[in-house]
């Protein structure tokens, strides 16, 4: 079968695949940043003494974590235009979806991170006269974030792989670009093998980075 592979179609498709990869990376970065911010906020709500806040945040996280991502992607794609009154496009819709969805996962990580900071640190912040907000933003969250960097990045690798699901709503990510290029050249197998390789190389490099970081975090603590 490999004798029939025509790898020469890959080189001319590279610029097109690159635009797809750019979108995949952008989607990952946006969802990671937004997801961590929203997730941190959710984690703070869950750990707060207010029952209403904690309950609402828990419900949100549980809901997101029990629905398959594909369905969330589809629903958001259908619902956002209904709610806002105008279509936002598959690309933007995917960014909103992934941010909202990943926030649930990042919030669990941040919650563990916040709990990994000892109560003594909070007491020390309080004793200095810092307010709750200040203790959180200068003492607890920086340490929580640092302790959790490897786990947050691991989640981001999963997120990057999951972004390939947006091809179902037609957003032009790396996978969609490969599909289109494969059709154009009538060489889908070559294209799918090539993008699989791209995903593999990117993810494996990132997880090597995570391993290095884990070592460093272990030393710092």
């Amino acid at each position, binding site marked *: 079968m490999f004798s029939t592979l025509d790898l020469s179609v890959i080189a001319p498709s590279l610029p097109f695949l690159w635009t797809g990869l750019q979108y995949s990376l952008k989607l990952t970065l946006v969802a990671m940043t937004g997801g961590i911010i929203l997730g941190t906020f959710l984690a703070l709500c869950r750990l707060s003494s207010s029952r209403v806040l904690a309950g609402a945040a828990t419900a949100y996280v549980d809901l997101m974590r029990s629905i398959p991502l594909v369905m969330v992607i589809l629903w958001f794609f259908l619902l956002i235009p209904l709610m806002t009154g105008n279509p936002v496009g598959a690309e933007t819709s995917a960014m909103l979806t992934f941010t909202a969805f990943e926030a649930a996962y990042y919030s669990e990580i941040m919650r563990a991170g916040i709990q990994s900071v000892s109560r*003594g640190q909070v007491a*020390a912040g309080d*004793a*200095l*006269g*810092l*307010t709750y907000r200040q203790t959180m933003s200068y*003492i607890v969250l920086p340490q929580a974030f640092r302790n959790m960097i490897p786990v947050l990045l691991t989640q981001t690798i999963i997120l990057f792989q999951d972004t390939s699901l947006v091809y179902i709503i037609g957003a032009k990510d790396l996978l969609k670009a490969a599909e289109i290029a494969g059709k154009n050249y009538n060489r889908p197998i070559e294209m799918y093998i090539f993008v699989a390789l791209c995903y593999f190389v990117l993810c494996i490099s990132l997880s090597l980075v995570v391993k290095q970081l884990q070592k460093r975090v272990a030393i710092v603590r």
Partner: protein
Amino acid sequence: MIEMSNVSKHYGQFQVLTDCSTTVSKGEVIVVCGPSGSGKSTLIKCVNGLEPFQSGKITVDGVSVGAPETDLPKLRARVGMVFQNFELFPHMSITENLTIGQIKVLKRSAEEATEIGLKLLDRVGLKAQAGKFPGQLSGGQQQRVAIARALSMNPICMLFDEPTSALDPEMVNEVLDVMVELAHEGMTMMCVTHEMGFARKVADRVIFMDQGRIVEDATKADFFGTPRSERAQQFLSKILSH
């Protein structure tokens, strides 16, 4: 300065503090001791509201700690506290540890805060460590930084919760020396400690706690001379025989 009357606290059924009353006047040094689990940490943490209590009253410089209208952060900024495990902020340099409270709470400028911080660091003998991180210092050095951090807020009184009990024996004195110096300068201090040498040197009064009660609240001379309660006598003989 600190007035405590009939303070009681319980966790569910478990009574941690029962009817604790005492007064600490300006410039006084009080040593609090007692067996493990007797409520010493809890008592001292009630003073700056780190631990809530269910009944009784504590006022610090006339401000009621437990009152709902009290601005606790504001009050705490005026009460220095030193913890058993130092609790320096590990992600900040020594200088940042010394300035964060000044900048964020007292709204001092970064330059002013740094100047004050470095002066205090010099005072505890650690000027050279300004750029390091807490993890790079020994326990004794960290605790001295923690004292300097508390002092950076110009506190009206200082609370110490077993400041030397997490230290290796050879580092205990460097911390006690700083505390003795503070006492001589007239700082109002409430210290939970089992360092009886420190108590003999600078304490005005000694409070002995047992099972959440203040069993003995006596002048230093009375406490070491003729402790009234049997528990205190036992405790003293145990501690002093070490």
